[in-house]
């Protein structure tokens, strides 16, 4: 056979293999409102940048008549490509081939591209759309999952790992996304759960739909498993694209800087925050009033909304923003918000992203439900994450910073590099009302007019302690600034922190309060 005819033979083989599960299965996929695995890869990556490997892989199953079945590519597509010029490794499960079920060779393809990503130090993107383990391959598919989880863990903190849930992702399969850094879900398409509605019904007698059990909304609002929610696959892909511009290829690099741009004039920093610490406002406006071009990519927007996390830029450099949100639950720290902030801080620290923290916190949320849900253990995560982080850490105290909340929100005591406070800042052990009621309890009780004396004492306490100057006198904050000076000081702080280096005691690893 001549080289030409051998090449033609290759093209024919290729043509056949890329059909995946065939026309009928592709039509079914479209009927479910889903793109095919190939279409997804094409939509996420730069034009013509995708190069596929292991197209001709075949499964080795020999039981249950499996030897007679041809599964093109064994239900998964792997390869390398780029997003906005950034190299990435990618895999996409192909639901049209045996429901995207995971058998031994399917898993080997995924682990191959994971090993590549780790070796090459480039981000990994995994698109999940699979019915789960391929039952016919038995324990081999379980082994496959295990090999994937192991690599997710090994790569954690070395390369960014992104999971895109574009179909069912059930049983053991959900643990791979859970081990990665960012999980993207799409309304009506994504489904994640350990045990499905069927099993729940037989075992527990409780009836629930797939959507209510583990749909995109559930994971975005209730569980916090998902980081980005969208209505359509296209919107999801543009979110991925945007995220990629903020994060570095690996932990050995910094995110590629942009050109510095002033915030938009509609965000007027001195007109957002009410002077009364009891009044709400949207702290995202403060972030947008200081970030380059007022750009802010919020993460986990719908879960634990009492804390805000996300990426923006200051002077062109990627910044991880953490801010208490007075608009929701007065911005308290609780189990979920602590969890949310702590994990984000650790991502930023692992990938050399400076952290800017805006503080307006009344403390930790009181309540039996919180105590029993382990607010001690979860709240401690914030302390751990900030203390452990060695990237530049800058704090701006906007208003209240009370009690444990003050300490936890990147205080000087957890080694913030710069702590700035607005003149509206109140750094105190608790709010004036609570403090006065305790300190002056006897006087208030002994008075013929307790309400009057209480009000008087609250006022007295407010005047003495509800300000930034007590903390400034002790050097716990570095300077009290005018609100309109905030961006200027942040730009300066980021610039002077570029060569920050601190050494932490040598250890294998710490033991965070997981």
């Amino acid at each position, binding site marked *: 056979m001549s080289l030409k005819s051998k090449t033609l033979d290759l093209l024919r083989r290729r043509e056949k293999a890329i059909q995946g599960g065939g026309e009928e299965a592709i039509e079914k996929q479209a009927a479910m409102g889903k793109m095919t695995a190939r279409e997804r890869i094409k939509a996420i990556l730069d034009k013509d940048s995708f190069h596929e490997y292991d197209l001709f892989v075949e499964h080795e199953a020999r039981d249950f008549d499996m030897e007679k079945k041809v599964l093109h590519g064994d239900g998964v597509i792997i390869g390398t490509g780029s997003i906005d010029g950034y190299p990435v490794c990618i895999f996409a499960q192909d639901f049209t081939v045996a429901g995207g079920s995971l058998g031994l060779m399917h898993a080997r393809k995924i682990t191959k591209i994971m090993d590549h990503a780790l070796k090459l130090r480039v981000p990994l993107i995994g698109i999940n759309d699979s019915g789960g383990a391929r039952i016919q391959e038995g324990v081999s598919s379980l082994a496959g999952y295990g090999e994937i989880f192991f690599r997710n863990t090994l790569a954690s903190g070395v390369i960014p790992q992104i999971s895109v849930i574009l179909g069912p992702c059930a049983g053991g399969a959900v643990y791979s996304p859970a081990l990665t850094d960012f999980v993207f879900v799409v309304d009506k398409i994504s489904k994640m759960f350990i045990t499905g509605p069927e099993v729940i019904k037989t*075992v*527990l*007698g*409780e009836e629930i739909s797939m959507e209510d059990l583990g749909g995109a909304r559930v994971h975005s*609002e*209730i569980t916090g498993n998902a980081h980005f929610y969208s209505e359509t696959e296209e919107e999801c892909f543009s979110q991925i694209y945007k995220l990629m511009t903020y994060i570095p290829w690996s932990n050995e690099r910094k995110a590629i800087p942009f050109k510095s741009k002033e915030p938009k004039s509609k965000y007027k920093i001195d007109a957002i925050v009410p002077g009364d610490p*009891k*009044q*709400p406002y949207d702290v995202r406006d403060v972030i947008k009033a200081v970030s380059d071009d007022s750009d802010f990519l919020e993460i986990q927007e719908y879960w634990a*909304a*009492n804390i805000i996390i996300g990426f923006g830029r200051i002077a062109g450099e990627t910044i991880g923003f953490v801010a208490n949100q*007075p*608009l*929701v*639950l*007065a*911005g*308290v720290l609780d189990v*979920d918000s602590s969890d949310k902030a702590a994990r984000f801080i650790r991502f930023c620290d692992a990938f050399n992203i400076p952290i800017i923290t805006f503080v307006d916190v*009344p*403390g930790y*949320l*009181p*309540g*039996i*439900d919180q105590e*029993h849900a382990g607010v001690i253990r979860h709240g401690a995560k914030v302390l751990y994450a900030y203390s452990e982080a060695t990237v530049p850490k800058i704090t701006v105290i906007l208003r209240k910073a*009370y*009690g444990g909340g003050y300490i936890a929100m990147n205080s000087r005591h957890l080694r913030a590099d710069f702590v700035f406070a607005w003149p509206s800042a109140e750094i105190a052990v*608790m*709010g*004036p*009302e*609570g*403090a006065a*009621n305790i300190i002056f309890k006897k006087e208030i009780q002994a008075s013929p007019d307790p309400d009057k004396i209480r009000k008087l004492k609250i006022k007295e306490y407010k005047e003495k302690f509800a300000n930034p100057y007590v903390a400034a006198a002790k050097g716990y904050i570095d300077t009290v600034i005018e609100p309109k000076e905030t961006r200027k000081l942040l730009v300066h702080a980021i610039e002077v922190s570029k060569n920050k280096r601190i050494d932490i005691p040598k250890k294998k690893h710490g033991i965070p309060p997981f």
Partner: protein
Amino acid sequence: MENIKINDDVLEMVLEEVQVLEQIEYSNFYIDDTKYKTLLTKKFEKRQPWKSPDKSKIITHVPGTIGKILVKEKEKIKPGQKLLVLESMKMKNIVETQDTGVIKRICVTPGQKVSKGEVLIEL
């Protein structure tokens, strides 16, 4: 572009959809005697008030089906005694007591399906 007639003059103008700004209703939220104005989350609003456990009632912690009942009414029971079998999570779970007492009433019968939190036995 729409044509609008005002006092016989026909004006051409673009009508834009105007979003009516909703008046946000904030809730009161107390921490350390301070009253904050803020929005509440669904999770916060749905939280269950805590109840001290009632030792006179033995309740289910998982849904399931009642199997064999191993005690009788008016029977004296002591810690570690097996009370009944609850079939749940693909297992036959034996429900034991941790307390001493006298059985006042058995509230379930074999074969009955029970949900979480249902009373099995009253002491």
